[in-house]
């Protein structure tokens, strides 16, 4: 289990997307998200993108108003996770065209779908943008 969870949070601290790869109760999630968001949002641009929290490492990156936070276990390669976040943003960019917070809010399902294509069981399984988007395009066509 490399990736434990993926969060997208705006700079007001509101969660816009939450995907967990291990089961946590709602209360645990609420507490965890609160703590992490407080920790990460307080940091500035000159500081590094890694924060240790409980037994997780949080790798995060900010794009405009949105923070992408990925909780990983200790074995995971932080730089690879940063690349993964970037890949995720690029993929969404390609799909939505200049992706912004609103796109993710109103098309949360699609964002989840992309994530499902990219990550399975906490492992990164797909890293090609066109492969990730192919099934979504297929679905769009059929519906």
């Amino acid at each position, binding site marked *: 289990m490399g990736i434990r969870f993926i969060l997208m949070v705006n700079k007001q601290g509101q969660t816009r997307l939450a995907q967990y790869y291990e089961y946590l109760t709602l209360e645990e999630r609420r507490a965890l998200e609160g703590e992490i968001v407080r920790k990460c949002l307080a940091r500035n641009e000159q500081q590094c993108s*890694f924060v240790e929290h409980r037994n997780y490492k949080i790798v995060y990156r900010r794009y405009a108003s949105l923070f992408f936070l990925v909780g990983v276990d200790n074995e995971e*390669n932080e730089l690879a996770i940063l690349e993964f976040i970037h890949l995720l943003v690029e993929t969404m960019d390609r799909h939505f065209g200049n992706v912004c917070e609103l796109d993710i809010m*109103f098309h949360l399902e699609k964002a*989840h779908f992309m994530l499902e294509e990219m990550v399975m069981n906490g492992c990164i399984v797909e890293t090609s943008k066109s492969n990730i988007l192919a099934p979504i395009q297929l679905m769009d066509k059929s519906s």
Partner: protein
Amino acid sequence: MAGSSLMDTLFQRTLEDLIKGLRLHLIGESAFISKAMEDIRKEIKSTDPHTKSTALQKLSYLSSLYFYDMSWAAFHVVELMSSTRFAHKRIAYQAASLSFDENTPVLVLITNQLRKDLISTNELEVSLALECLSRIATVDLARDLTPEIFTLLSSGKVFVRKKAVGVVLRVFEKYPDAVKVCFKRLVENLEGSDQQVVSVAVGVFCELALKNPRSYLPLAPEFYRILVESRNNWILIKVLKIFAKLALLEPRLANKVVEPICDHMKRTDAKSLVFECIRTVVTSLTDYESAVKLAAVRIREMLMDDDPNLKYLALQALSTVAPNHVWVVVENKEIVIKSLSDEDPNIKLESLRLVMMMVSQSNIVEISRVLLNYALKSDPFFCNEILGSILSTCCRNVYEIIVDFDWYVSLLGEMSRIPHCQKGDEIEKQLIDIGMRVEDVRLELVRVARDLLIDPALLGNSFLYRTLSAAAWVSGAYVEFSKNPFELMEALLQPRTYLLPPLIRAVYLQSAFKVLVYSLHSYLLQRGITERDFAEGSDYAQHDASASLNQEEGFNPRVLNQSFDDLSVEHGEEISAGHGQASAFDSLGTNSFSDESIMNMINLIELAVGPLSGSLDVEVQERARNIRSFIELIKQEMVDCLAQKEESLDRNKTEVSKIIKLMHDAFSSELGPVSVTAQERVPIPDGLLLKENLEDLETICPDVQLPLLNSFSFGSPQSEETNGDSLPDLQNKVESEPSKESTSLLAQHRKRHGLYYLPSEKKEISNDYPPANDLKSENDRNNDAENLVKLTEQSLVPKKKPSNAKTRPVVVKLDEGDQVSIAAKAQPKDDLLSGAVREVLLGNDTNDSLSQSKPSDRSSARRKGKEKLNLDSPSESKENLDDVKKHDDEIPSSRKNKHRKHGKERRHKTSGNVLDEGGENSQKGKEKTGHRHGKHKARQRADVPLNVVSQTPVIPDFLL
């Protein structure tokens, strides 16, 4: 009903409406959501799948982002899963992955639905089911659906196959028997040519190998091929992670992969890959100097980079490499130290950690100086991090790295004066602890304590209270080292002490009491001398001698053993010199007691303590009353005595001095840490017939020994030496003689009944520095652990060098019991640190049954997989052929004959033979490792010291 559902559909709010509404109702959000939840509860019961799915979609949204419970809707989720429309099915599956857990009761209902979707012709449906399964699979689901997953593992569609590979991880975890069925196909996918699938398969193996690396050693050739051939960084990172684990288990494998890893490190521009290579080298390939050198170069590049991310990771890599190759850290010392003032607290912490790793006996003074300067400049949080790490580093293993305790004690004093310091508790603990353990330092300790007490400004800082409490205690307990008890008394009773919390005030009062008693006692002794001087009119030489003798008794009544001489001589000289100068010195008041000064002191106490006897706090009140009663008891006599001088002297001696002497004796008994061997010093009472009662216990419970070995006495500090006489030589006698007597008695007893004794090795060297010994005995006991640490070459215990400790010159009074406990505590933690060891020792919760069922079944599965590879791709590992041949010769031919694949060998006359050999090798390895594993477990159980066999196992090279 139809009508209502139509109405619902028409007027139902969609998810989009909900989101818009949420955006509008930022203030009354929760009311808005409650309303929405009400609607959802109604809508979700609808028979119209569209209404239902929209309701579920909204519910999932609220649950995932606003933490609303949706477990009540589980049945609706199941209903909707069977919808024929993909859009509905998708919503249901998503809701299921979001909200189902192991205990969701309706899980048993979805098996058939999942099966149906898994064998669907629509690959999107199959993918949905697989995705969902990877999140929610339970033991039952995994077991029931294994056949379908097995089929999908060789699906023609890459899109489906890669997901099937991905789901295997969860299935194995839940239902280990699935390994029997699916492992072969999983390996095939690893060997396949499709990069997408290989990527997933490598990911799965990476996760599996992290949990239990040993089982995957036989697959090393496959991983090696990928390591050399793949140019996909994602895949390479995963493979490197696998090798980081495997190389620790098999040195020859490490030898093999070192070169390709270095190649990657040189070749690639991708920072993530470089970092993974570095990490692999510093964790698993530390024996390969060239690789470490190369890694050091890349680490340095990262450190120099402006990107804080790279800097942070480089620092982390440094702390990994530090235990084995300190030179890498030393090379970058400047950058590390500079990073202490970095903008990023994480980087600062990391560099602090690193700096503390470089600490040793020789540089602790210098490093602490630098760190303290940083602490002064830092923000409160980091300041305390620095202080905390200095404190914890210095007190490790009973102040192992401290040579100069005078320095350390004054450092403690300095620390507590740092404005942000919040480590009062720890400083308190250490001040008192050092006071009890290290006799030589008491003079300095009292000086430091005095400086703290005397500063009224410090009383305003509540974080300092604990430190002040320790200072007060120290100056009370070791008042004989004080240069000026009057000053001390003033400090202890200064008005601002009302700021202190009652408990600490109580400590202050008690210390004041001790100072008072000490002063009176010394005063009387001094008077005695003076009287004698006057009476005898003796010459100065004699006077000096007797004075110094008496002062020794008076001023150093608690000094018990060897260090007594130095101190008392020094101290005595000072005093007698002072005395020689007679009255001039008296007026200065330094440690001489004039009648006037004593009366002043008594008056001061009455003045300051008086009001406290009405204090609300019982502790303060009681102690204040104690002091007052004592003063009342002696005051009149003292006044008389002062008035009448010589005449009343005799009476004084009989009454006042009796009381004072009594009190003084009461306070003189030494408080100290309790030694583990303290029990042996207790003489056996007459008439106690231990042996007769306990003799046959040995036969009744022979296995008691182990718990006994580990149980140490943690008694609270109590008087170690029973007799508190103020005459030092008498005390020495008291200390040594009975103990010798009893030890000889005990030694005999021990011989016969060793079973009932605490470990005795330390007894002979009770004043030597024992951690070295303790560590060794610890190690003996934990031999497997040590052995494994060596095996994995991951000893993350850089500071524990027993030899180091033994040569330390400072005489430290130690409590062996404590030390053992410290060592014992440290040991398991260090074991935890070496990840590989943990894996092997504890197994892992998920794979327990997995690994049990694996060896036989899986090896057969794997064997087949291997054969297939050899048939399919004979050219794939050609680059290995040369090495293969070399090793081929080493393999006994009898093994070849055992092999079943003769036909195939013949078919590949040129290369196939060799490749088959490779396959066979891995099987052999498999069997060997399985065997070894078993042995290892048995060893643990039996607690056999050191298994040499396991260190030099005969394992065929897996890469050949």
